[in-house]
């Protein structure tokens, strides 16, 4: 009986907080826009009995999906979001790896403090930190002032309102999500393994590639997913730091929902976004499974 609880809990969680909301969104994506409360039709009226349910289902269709597929805007926006998120994830990895590595190699009694420092930015609101970046990156901002005073540039750089600013924003905001899983997998690697490699004549860089790096792969994948998935649907960072031409699906979804008041089409966009994101998650799951089996 107890075992049943333990197995059942995550499924109930999944059902309540993922599947039920998903089906509500999916149902709206099959309906049509209307001027009413709520702003779509048909709505299910159970008091009408079986007939009402039948007409309700007969009025649902996949029209909104064919609309999304036929207007290149949505494909462009999905593609551009995936590209921006992928590049940002890669940069985050490159920045986070040395930090996590350094943390894992630091003396044991320093590590809790270092961990604390990584988490510390979360104590300030995410929004305020993004605003702070606006102050740093703008034309008369801190970064330009600094570079000009150093004599490195003569003209202020335009960084704010470009994709570069979006990359900076994503890398900065999601860095801890990359560092923490990396750190936890790097920290598990026994120093004796590296000593063994050294004893067998491997230079440090080779030992890194052949021992440390492969053993940290689970951390790399977990970190990349934790950054990539939320970054694809990111709205605040492109809205505040990005330019008007920064095309991301989060912004497209916002304008479908708020400008066009088209709940059905925006729901369809959201469902497709979910499908786009489920693919890497499934791949990751499969990889972890393989690894677990290999390790057995």
């Amino acid at each position, binding site marked *: 009986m107890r075992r049943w609880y333990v197995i059942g809990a995550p499924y109930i969680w999944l059902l309540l907080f993922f599947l039920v909301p998903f089906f509500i969104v999916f149902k709206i994506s099959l309906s049509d826009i209307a001027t009413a*409360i*709520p702003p779509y039709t048909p709505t299910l009226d159970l008091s009408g009995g079986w007939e009402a349910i039948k007409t309700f289902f007969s009025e649902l269709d996949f029209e909104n999906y064919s609309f999304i597929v036929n*207007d290149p805007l949505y494909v462009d926006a999905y593609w551009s979001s995936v590209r921006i998120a992928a590049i940002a994830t890669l940069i985050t990895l490159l920045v986070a790896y040395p930090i996590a590595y350094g943390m894992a190699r630091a003396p044991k009694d320093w590590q809790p403090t270092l961990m604390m420092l990584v988490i510390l930015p979360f104590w300030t609101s995410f929004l305020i930190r993004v*605003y702070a970046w606006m102050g740093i990156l*703008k034309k008369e901002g801190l970064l330009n002032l600094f570079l000009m005073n150093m004599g490195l540039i003569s003209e202020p750089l335009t960084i704010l309102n470009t994709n570069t600013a979006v990359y900076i924003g994503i890398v900065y905001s999601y860095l801890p999500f990359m560092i923490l899983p990396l750190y936890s997998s790097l920290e598990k690697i026994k120093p004796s393994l590296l000593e063994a490699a050294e004893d067998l004549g491997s230079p440090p860089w080779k030992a890194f590639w052949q021992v440390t790096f492969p053993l940290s792969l689970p951390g790399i994948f977990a970190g990349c997913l934790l950054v990539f998935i939320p970054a694809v649907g990111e709205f605040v960072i492109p809205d505040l730091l990005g330019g008007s031409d920064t095309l991301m699906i989060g912004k497209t979804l916002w304008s479908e929902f*708020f400008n066009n*008041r088209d709940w059905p089409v925006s729901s369809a966009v959201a469902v497709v976004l979910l499908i786009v994101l489920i693919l890497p998650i499934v791949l990751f799951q499969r990889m972890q499974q393989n690894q677990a089996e290999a390790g057995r």
Partner: protein
Amino acid sequence: MTGHHIARRILATGIAVAAVAIGHAALAKDREVRVFNWSDYIDESILEDFTKETGIKVVYDVFDSNEVLETKLLAGGTGYDVVVPTGPFLSRQIGAKVFQKLDKSKLPNISNMWSDISERVAIYDPGNEYSVNYMWGTTAIGYNEAKIKERMPDAPVDSWDLFFKPEVLAKFKDCGVHVLDAADDILPAALNYLKLDPNSKNPEDLQKAAALMESIRPNILKFHSSEYINALANGDICLAVGYSGDILQAKSRAEEAKNGQVIAFGLPKEGAQMWFDQMAIPADSKHVAEAHEFLNYMMKPEVIAKASNYVSYANGNKASQEFLDETIKNNPSIYPSEETMKRLFVKTSYDAKTQRTVTRLWTKVITGK
């Protein structure tokens, strides 16, 4: 006023949720009215005075875009008793049966209202049955005097040429141009400039307006609906197409900061779009009597004058004009001359299909896709 900042939007939502939660905890016999208005849009002492006079507690929350308000209203069950949408949104929401008709017998102060404004609002709310005006203003050009003069001594600051002529706007590209990210505000101005009906719902006309925007697009730094207030005030940009009150706010912020930036507001001679923020009572309001008392209080001449003096917007209350500060009443950007008033136009709301066309054209203008 169509869109403000996402940050403030999120803050506003948080405050709203908290306030509603607190509201529920209050004793049921307490009389209260829950008001949902734009951020930075009232002199708070007015609310205190209202509570002192009537004993009705005011739960006051703020939003910063019509879209957010509309989404809440269309989802239903907001818990608010008075909300303040802008004209085209109001009209569509009336169509969706969001509001209840006002009981005019409980609003004796309605006789103070200004017929010039009420008549124009009737396009959105026929017979003024569902709403009364809170504030109104225009969508036009704000600019940095020194920076514009420096780049073009004879700049046509009294005309839309300043913005819509590519060769003129190109001169200001280097000092920064911001435009509202609001198709509903900019495309009508473009149509008007092209001497087409600003209210046109004809896809060909809208195409022409979008093409005009595309011709000046390379000179525009950013489309955003509130960043320009700070950017103008700080001298980060030199030209913005935005709402009258926001531009005047940028002007006074620059004056307060004594940073040497002089911001001016130009109401172009070709005319500009007028907008109206209207107070209305949702159909599912639980404090209908209190909501009427609140509306009636807001139509007292000295009360609404106090609000105008604070926010630098004109109101739709004729009797209030004698209580206005001279600087507000005599400012032609706030209370335009009768002649200018004639050239101001109003825009009705788009149906779903036209709205989609407009949003799609706008996305193409902004992103090139």
